[in-house]
């Protein structure tokens, strides 16, 4: 048994300790917003917040989570995340949508730290979140739109 904190709740899981956090969330907690894209930390589809930092949940064994607070896309509910989600819809960022949970998680981590990110800040924070549909033009615009709405 391992206990982890997900979206503000403590959850007990009966899984092998090497099970990646991603698959705990998806197959055992029932939170499927975080996606599997590559399994080795290359695409960002599985991004979650770990104590506020965007991490690749596919590459973190559940045994390494410890007391860290995990927030998935389903648990994003602060002002920053809400304004990002509103901007995402306003600019119709999503195409297939499969990468977008991860994009929003990483964008939330960025905007919480930097309220007025430059293009370089956006590149640095989001270049680990791949989008095969290449919605990048709108991701950039939506991050700026959300930042503006938060001012």
């Amino acid at each position, binding site marked *: 048994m391992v206990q982890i904190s997900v979206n503000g709740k403590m959850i007990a899981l009966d899984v*092998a300790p090497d099970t990646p956090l991603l698959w705990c969330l998806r197959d055992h907690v029932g939170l499927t917003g975080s*996606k599997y*894209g590559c399994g080795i930390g290359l695409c960002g589809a599985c991004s979650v917040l770990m104590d506020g930092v965007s991490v690749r949940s596919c590459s973190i064994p559940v045994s390494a989570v410890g007391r860290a607070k995990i927030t998935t896309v389903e648990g994003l509910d602060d002002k920053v995340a809400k304004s990002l989600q509103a901007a995402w819809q306003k600019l119709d960022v999503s*195409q*297939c*949508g*499969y990468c977008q949970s991860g994009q929003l998680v990483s964008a939330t981590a960025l905007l919480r730290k930097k309220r007025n990110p430059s293009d370089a800040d956006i590149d640095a924070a989001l270049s680990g979140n*791949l989008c095969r*549909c290449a919605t990048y033009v709108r991701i950039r615009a939506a991050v700026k739109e959300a930042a503006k709405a938060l001012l």
Partner: protein
Amino acid sequence: MTTRKHNIQPSSRRDFIKLIGGLTLGFCLPGSRDATAAGATIADANAGVSAAFEPNAFVRIGADSKVTVIAKHLEMGQGVYTGLATLVAEELDADWDQVSVEGAPADAKHYNNLLWGPFQGTGGSTAIANSFDQLRNAGAIARAMLVSAAAGQWGVPAKDVSVSRGRLIHAATKRNASFGEFVVHAAELPIPTDISLKQAKDFIYIGKHVPRKDGKAKATGKAIFTQDIRLPGMLTGVVAHPPRFGSTVKGFDADAALQIPGVVDVVSIGNAVAVLGNDFWSAKKGRDALIIKWNDSNAFKLDSSEIMAQYNILARGPGAIARAEGDADTALRSAKKVIQAAFEFPYLAHAAMEPMNCVVRLGKGECEVWNGEQFQSGDQMALGQVLGISPEKIKLNMLFAGGSFGRRANPASDYILECARIAKAINGRAPVKLVWTREDDMRAGYYRPMFYHTIKAGLDAKGNLIAWKHRLVGQSIGTGTAMEAMMVKDGIDHTSVEGASNLPYQISNLTVDLHSPVIGVPVQWWRSVGSTHTAFSTETFIDELAVAAGKDAVAFRLALLTKHPRHVEVLKLAAAKAGWGKRLAPGAKGEKRGRGIAVHESFNSFVAQVVEVTVKADKSYKVDRVVCAVDCGIAVNPDIVRAQMEGGIGFAMSAAKYGAITLNDGVVDQSNFHDYRIVNISEMPKVEVHIVPSAKAPTGVGEPGVPPFAPALANAIAAATGKRLRKLPLVLV
């Protein structure tokens, strides 16, 4: 896919009404059409609604006034759920917010792709093109019936009842009611056969901005994909595929796999071994612990460089003629200047963000599938054969797909059958979810075929283009599939030569021929299909000829496009918006900048792009800006058209900069995004999209944004450096 030639689209509105008149009329009881997980997330169906009005297979209106549009096409990112809903809402005069969308069941009688005959499926950028009349009619019929019902109840003439944003209105008596108030009466009325559609000037949604219907679900992590399906008792299957195409299982040792907690079973399905577990991670560990002996006697064992060498040899002799006009050989002999070039294109993986996956629940004489379902009729048939079940007993739940780019419309139903075979191997005792890892997905084949092209052209003394000989060598996508009869005519697979055999430039002596070698690497359509390579060779070579003729690249093209006004228009528009002819701002010290252009028609849409590139001192390059002009007829949702151009450009850029699947002794070299790279946000240029205003019937936009990008980029690199890159991916050395 380009089966659009087989057009059974009714030629007149009258024929059309006949067609739609045969569709179901009936009441829809709550839950009678199962709201699948994907549908439910954005459709929230009609749960709790006591009666509903379902005038045809595409529209359902509940007593709560909710309008549900039944989408016959797969939403894989291209925005089709929104597009189809727009068409219905327009003619129904519904309020956009009252409209939701759910995926249609597999039922080719009602949901066939009108451009593919009796076949249900999505592809070839046909979704809006084939639905434009059909879904507007569906909306108009529903509207007319609601109007009649209201008029009847109010005792006023139907012609005096108007509809606006979801309200039925009789102005003279100040009556104003919702759709829901009349659904019971409307459902009892005969289906009208005499309806008229709106004039373009009266459109309230078509050509305007409406937000995507899937936007909220996708911005909150709530959209449901195949990967997210979990049925009671379901097992997850992870498979070991053979290292080479064509290998089979000789034997395997499952002891170690079965030791892993959570692993439930191990089964061989002939060309793969599947480990079934209670969750993905257990099953994957089990898969990795398998010891398998493969029988390689029929395996494909060439290197990709050996394949290319064979293509090179084939290209020395004539192939099957795809187009011949005048006498190219004689004209070449009389030419003042002859130029030739050869082009190499690698295999490409689709690499959709959601690796292929599928859920199968196998019952007695029936079966249910959850999938990003793109090829309903083909998949039903294939499943029926493998499972011994009649195709109509196979229920297909069409979920959102996390991208496809062609992959989920597999002519062999490959991953779907794999899942079905696993379910069969365990006698259907549990539902099975097949999950491919990224590595499985990358190595499973069905690639954009490798191609080798040569083009030889001649200019006369005045620099006029008088001869063109284009030879293509590459595998046929259609041969050996159920679509062969439709796709391959006289030895020419249309998808091999599209974009080359219909070269728009006026050249009196022109030959296009094709070799279609049979190679044991599975191939498939990949976003924009033949145009992924034909646009590149033709548009970079025409550029090269312009330089040789001492003419401007745009002017040279325009002079040869006298019979192609739509090419001309996008070419001029892109050039004008990009400031063609004006000097580019110079780059930093050691950097070279260049601008390139390309124009291409695919899937009956016309796109021109201007690319600006900066080549750095270390020979790397950065695309700074892309200006895109598109003519797709009526732009039903202009913002989605723009999104598809932006996305198509980014998708094309991954292939142009990095894309290559290579083989070593038949084994695929690539495995994941580190060796099959796709561009990230920092590489994405500024993109400006300009849509040509048009009253013509709408054509596709999912694919046509892809083809012009790579040639425009290569032309820009040539402008910057003088180097002509003719081998993909584009690498400066």
